[in-house]
């Protein structure tokens, strides 16, 4: 750990991820070194199958690494237990998936409140309502996911990722399932909220124009960083 660790919220040192299936071991990440500054936005681009999602999920603590080190604010994440990782996620990370991943049996508001309910800090609906207002869903608080359009569902997911005031937001192709108009709106919203909430954004995307709006672009190819600008 060096002196820069205060400024770098995330540090990856020689991170490998390999998966075993029935016959062989597949190396997905093959030695990633990466430092992410606090309050910065960084986009991850690359071909399909390059390992973008895997990298994002590694930082989110969802993917277990087979070699290397990951630090969050100087604290080692790589040797945390499953439950400690869950704890890390619920306090520090908000995740936005390509396929929304809302719970179908809960309303928009309940979905947004979910992370705080899990971590046991939910007191009232105030913050959830506030967040849903800020993503423009004031009138959809008590709608169920199946009553919402794709764009609206993704906006609920964005609100949900912010409820615990995380320091990192990880978005894995958040507009992948949306049309152009909705995509633009959702992206605008993500960037606005990122600066409003002063958090670090890690954005996985195919879209170069979106990627360029970030402070930094990383290009992955076959499990390695080929461009870091």
């Amino acid at each position: 750990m060096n002196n820069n660790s205060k400024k770098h919220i995330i540090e990856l040192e020689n991170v490998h991820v390999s998966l075993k299936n029935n016959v062989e071991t597949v190396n997905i990440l093959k030695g990633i070194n990466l430092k992410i500054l606090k309050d910065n936005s960084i986009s991850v681009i690359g071909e399909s199958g390059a390992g973008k999602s895997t990298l994002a999920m590694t930082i989110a603590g969802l993917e277990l690494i087979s070699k290397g080190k990951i630090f969050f604010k100087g604290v080692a994440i790589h040797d945390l237990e499953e439950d400690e990782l869950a704890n890390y996620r619920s306090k520090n990370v908000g995740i936005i998936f390509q396929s929304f991943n809302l719970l179908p049996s809960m309303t928009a508001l309940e979905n947004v409140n979910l992370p705080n309910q899990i971590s046991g800090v939910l007191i009232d609906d105030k913050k959830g309502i506030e967040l849903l207002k800020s993503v423009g869903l004031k009138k959809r608080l008590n709608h169920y996911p199946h009553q919402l359009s794709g764009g609206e569902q993704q906006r609920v997911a964005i609100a949900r990722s912010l409820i615990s005031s995380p320091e990192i937001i990880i978005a894995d192709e958040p507009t992948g399932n949306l049309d152009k108009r909705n995509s633009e709106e959702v992206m605008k919203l993500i960037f606005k909220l990122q600066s409003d909430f002063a958090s670090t954004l890690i954005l996985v995307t195919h879209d170069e124009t979106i990627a360029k709006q970030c402070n930094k672009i990383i290009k992955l190819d076959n499990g390695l960083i080929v461009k870091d600008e």
Partner: protein
Amino acid sequence: MNNFKFWKLSIKELRGSFNEFKIVITSIFLGIFIISAVGSLSENLKFEINNQRSQLLGGSFELSTTYQKFPQKIKKWLEVNGKVAEVIELRTMLSSNKNLINKRRLVELKAVDENWPLIGSVSITPNQTLNQTINNTNVNGVLIDKNVKNQLSLDLGDTLDLGDSRIVIKGIIKKEPDRMFSFATFGSRVLLSIKTLQKTNLIVPGSLVKYKIKFIPNKNNINLSYLNKLVEGTNITVRGVNSSTNNFNNFIERTSLFISMVGLITLLISGIGISNGVKGYIIKKIKNIAILKSLGAKNMQVFLIYLFQVMVIFLLSIIPALLAGISIPFILSPIISSELFDTFQATIFLKPIIISFSFGLIVCLLFTIIPISSTYEIKPIQLIRHAAHNIHNESSKKIKIFIFFLICFLSYLIVIMTNDIKLSAYIFTSIFVSFMILSTLTNIYFYILKKINFKIGSLSEFVRKSIISKNSFSKTIVVSFSIGLSLLISLNIIEESLDNKISKTINQEAPNHFLIDIQPNQIDTINKLASSSKDILFLNSQPMLRGRITEINDIKVENLKVNKDVEWVLKRDRAFSWTNERPKNSKLISGEWWKKDYNGPLLVSMGDKIAKGMNVKIGDNIRFNILGRNFEATIYNTREIIWENMNINFIFVLSESSLTNAPHTWIASTTSENKEINNNFVEKVVTTFSNISSISIEESYKAIKSILNLLIIIINSIALITLLSGVIVLTGILDVSKKDKLYEIAIFKILGASPKKISLLWLYEYLIIGLMASLISLLIGCLVSFILLYFVFNVDFYVNYLTLIILSFIVPIVITVFSFFKMIKLVLSKPLQVLRAHNH
């Protein structure tokens, strides 16, 4: 986890999923309903019996004596000190010549005085009082019960000969307050007054008559020990309300225990349904669980969320089951009060509710913990990666310990329910062993299926692959149907073996008739009659007297510790016989027979097993009371007694002594190859001597058989229900695997298979699964019944192959037909629609 309110989250997550729990709910409901209904009903009956003890006894006390009337002194004393009703009971032949058809029946005469009954009342059809019927002694009125009416085809107003007088049937007894319960007492009943009985002259010296006095003292200080002192030195026995060993209570306890056990087994079997239902549910929730985990939920939190849901479902299904269970006594109360107790008022008892609730909870936890703990295996990364929907059941150590405790608690509950540690251990090990055999056999089958190969592309190969595939539930189907079927098969084999044994005995070894109540001066005539018969007619006759054992080796019977299975010998009157000649066909186990001209102190020959059970041996002394006199005899030898061959067997045979001169009767059995000759002989005897009664073994057998048949029907229908609970499991599995099957069909169709071919494939698959279940159950059923027959019943194993074949076809047919109707809709669905739906 400081403020984590998992129940709130749990309930929210449960929304809209109730449909998934249909099987679980039905399974829990069924098992709990049976246990709680039986428990409530038996508690109610026991409570009522306790309340009505004095009515059932007929007074606060019952004094009884055999052969001899009550000494006047004691009778007087009782009359002065309380209310007294006298009852005399004896057996006799009742014959009817109605429509010129001669019918005879052994009946129980119950003669009562004007004071009877002291408690409760008799109800008669048509509605009359005792004064209008039996106490109207001018016409010798009697009341009969339904059995007599049917057996002798009698009607109101018919007249019959009874001893020396003619009696008139005045009514049918609907309910008799101090008769325990119709099915607990042997024989058919004729009720008359003591005065009428005296006119018949049926009571002669030596005839087996029971005299009873029902007594309600008018002073509180007259208690059981007081009365016992009063009758000291006589052969009178006194029973109090509390000391009366209540046969019916025992009967209820045994029966309800048996049905509860069946309920418990049903619950354990439906546990498989519960487990499957929850397993299927968790499979459907994999995505939700991954989402929760991605949002920071810990494994334990997820576990609690789903456990709580199962508990909610458990409560939702157990509450109606308990309500239905406790309402059974209320629903049955009209029948109970018309058949058993006038004043029956159903109540709610807490004990059966608590017991069935605990059982339900334990079984539910036991069978859902493993599928719920499989949520530990679900990883949030599955949200971006299509991991195979395969849940491994690697439960953690904590959960294994929890399961161990659940099993301990379950055994504890079984001990509470059965009140018998040995029995519980027996039940538990046999359930455990059967499950082990079942799972081993199933595994062997699947192992074989995995190893063999058919031609690639053939129908058989496809079915084989489908059955052994990882995602298929075929093993569960096999196991859950095998349990019920094994039960059914073993019950049927046991039943048929017993039946076979009985009818063999009846046809070969047992005598045809018994003649009872023969006077000593009649036996010579009867012997002559028998030997004058042209055909071979074997007559075996022995004298008998009833008496009670009072002391063994100077220890009073009340203080004696004997094995449970011989307690009955000491409890009531026993029949004694005597002879100096060794009885024919008797096999001595120890000692030897005394000399023919023996004339010394009294000796006794005892049944060997009974002697062992009472811990006595040759040289020990037994004191008994016959006709109010005490005798002491020394055990001289022990004999083997084979009860099953139904020959005349006396536990105690004495050497000849002064007892020979006491008034007594003889009992004889007749055996003949030729039924007609035998019947003629018996007919001749009973018409010549009106005091002699005959009992046809064949008819007794029929009577026993009809009771046995009823029991068999009950047991078999319960086993059948158990078998049908397999259908619950099947429904669940078909529901869970519907999507996969649908997908499979769609692919088949696109590949060009016709609906007919697809259906055929399926039928084939389920037929194979059903046949596997049959084969396993056949093996287990034969094994279990063989062990039980050999070690418990001591009866030869006998199998009726036809029944066995019919039983083996039930399961394959049920499974195939059922799944066919459940799946036919799928076969007819449009392939492209399905594929499209599947990808979303």
